[in-house]
């Protein structure tokens, strides 16, 4: 019986997936903001991956004879106080910022989703305990939780990712818990429970795929905030350390030369803004397409 059913189940699932994609594809294509955001993000990823070809100059090589030169052919974004090519540093910085943002979001979304799934599904005492802890963590506004964690772990790029990632966990946990509370009352969850699907399998294979849309939306929008927070912490000296070409760090390094060499701080700032702008447009677009009810 199972053998005869199995071959039929696979194409049915594939057909369902195709139908969902076929439904979404025209909406995605029609959404101008989403397409612009996607183009910016794809371009940035390409630049980050092929950084050695886009900017062949060594981003950390010091050449004091070329210090503080303005934008010109050969040094499109000028040079900094150590004669390093600002364009190369900005291009190489793309891979650092995107990696930091992605890893921090993955930490926050994965742990937050797991916590939210458990709290929402089990309810009662487990939920009450987890949510009280989440409430306490949410009492630390904005960057403060990340700041506290960096102060404990010590300033470094790796600790920065961990700190920003952990500080995002409460947000995802609360979001997922709320979604699970609604989803677990659905008939398919009850059916899975009745036929004896183990709870971890039920949570991961049945519940999770049905609540993934808000998580994707939140993660995309959260990536912009994460990149800003990471750059900010590096700016105040709590993230990447010299000579890493990290955008936030570059802003600090150019600060003392603002009067005579505006380009050192200006271009990394524009790079941060374009990246976050692209990610935000993509996130807003995905929200409109996947869940138009959430639109603001």
């Amino acid at each position, binding site marked *: 019986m199972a053998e005869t059913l199995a071959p039929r189940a696979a194409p049915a699932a594939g057909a369902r997936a195709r139908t969902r994609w076929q439904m979404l594809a025209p909406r995605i294509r029609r959404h101008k903001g989403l397409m612009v955001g996607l183009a910016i993000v794809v371009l940035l990823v390409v630049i980050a991956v092929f950084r050695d070809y886009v900017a062949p100059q060594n981003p950390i090589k010091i050449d004091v004879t070329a210090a503080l030169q303005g934008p010109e052919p050969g040094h499109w974004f000028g040079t900094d106080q150590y004669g390093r090519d600002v364009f190369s540093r900005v291009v190489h910085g793309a891979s650092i910022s995107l990696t930091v943002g992605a890893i921090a979001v993955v930490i926050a979304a994965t742990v937050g989703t797991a916590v939210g799934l458990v709290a929402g599904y089990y309810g009662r005492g487990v939920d009450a305990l987890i949510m009280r802890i989440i*409430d306490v963590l949410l009492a630390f*506004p904005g*960057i403060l939780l990340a700041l*506290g964690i960096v102060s404990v772990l010590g300033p470094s790029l790796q600790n920065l990712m961990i700190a920003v990632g952990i500080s995002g966990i409460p947000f995802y946990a609360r979001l997922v818990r709320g979604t699970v509370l609604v989803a677990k009352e659905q008939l398919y969850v009850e059916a899975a429970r009745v036929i004896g699907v183990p709870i971890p399998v039920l949570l991961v294979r049945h519940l999770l795929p049905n609540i993934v849309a808000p998580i994707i939306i939140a993660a995309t929008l959260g990536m912009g905030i994460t990149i*800003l927070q990471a*750059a900010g912490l590096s700016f105040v000296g709590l993230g990447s350390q010299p000579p890493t070409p990290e955008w936030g760090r570059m802003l600090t390094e150019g600060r003392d030369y603002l009067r005579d060499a505006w380009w050192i701080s200006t271009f990394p700032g524009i790079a941060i*803004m*374009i990246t*976050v702008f692209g990610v935000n447009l993509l996130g807003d677009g995905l929200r409109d397409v996947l869940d138009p009810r959430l639109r*603001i």
Partner: protein
Amino acid sequence: MIRYISARLLATVPVVFGVTIAVFSMLYLIPGDPVKMMLSEFQTSPEQIARMRAQLHLNDPFFVQYGRFVWNGLHGNLGTSIRDDRPVTQEIFEVLPQTVQLAVAALALSSLLGMALGILAALRQNSWVDIGAMTLATLGISMPSFWLGLILILIFSLRLELLPAAGGGDLPHLIMPAVALGLGAAAIIARLTRSSMLDILRTEFVTTARAKGLTGRTVVLRHALLNALIPTITIFGLQFGTLLTGTVFIETVFGRPGLGRLAIQAILNKDFPLVQGSVLIFALGYVVVNLLVDIVYAVVDPRIRYQ
């Protein structure tokens, strides 16, 4: 109303308790010996380390230390700064007014600008005004406040020489930091106000007001606007918290004395009592502001009280 306020106050108690536990536990979460980490930049003998451990009461059990932390905190004693050898509360309360002043100025600016932009965009939905305002808002959200601060210094201090680049105290020193800090929040408030205004403009009571023959201005100002602003109030608490901690970056850019800069300096100096004190005051300030916002929300919208 008193019942609502009492319930809300009561709900705050476990959060405050949790915040104090979290802040106190920071010392325990440091990998290795916290005293060695704090004194890593000094030449210290084992006796000095032992004396420091005794001074911080680190040899006592966790809950005894925590109890002392809370008891002393309630009496205005958050310990002594390792660097300056001064009471932490004294250091914090010397600079706190500057931070509150900056956050309030940024909130006022962002509310006025955000609401104006949001209302304008909603009234001209799908026009160029709407698209322009919302693109501007998305750009505003994407712009790092500390970078905007640097650009403002470059233009208004170094080039035009109109405003002072660094320091604090008077109004000229407040303008650029408040603008740099407030623009991001203005963008968020603009988006929320627009969406809330659009929802209200579609309600039946607005249609009724229009059907009665009222002018567009009366419908917007007397019927739609106040109702549309109610959801915006909830975001004030959230935004105030973000602005409060945003001062960490802005005070660093503008060399402005304040709690944010104090916290960063304390972290860089590994001055842990000062780090704990600053983080605690930031978090408690946020809890209090959210409590006040919830109460104001219930006053403005009576439906909240009965939920």
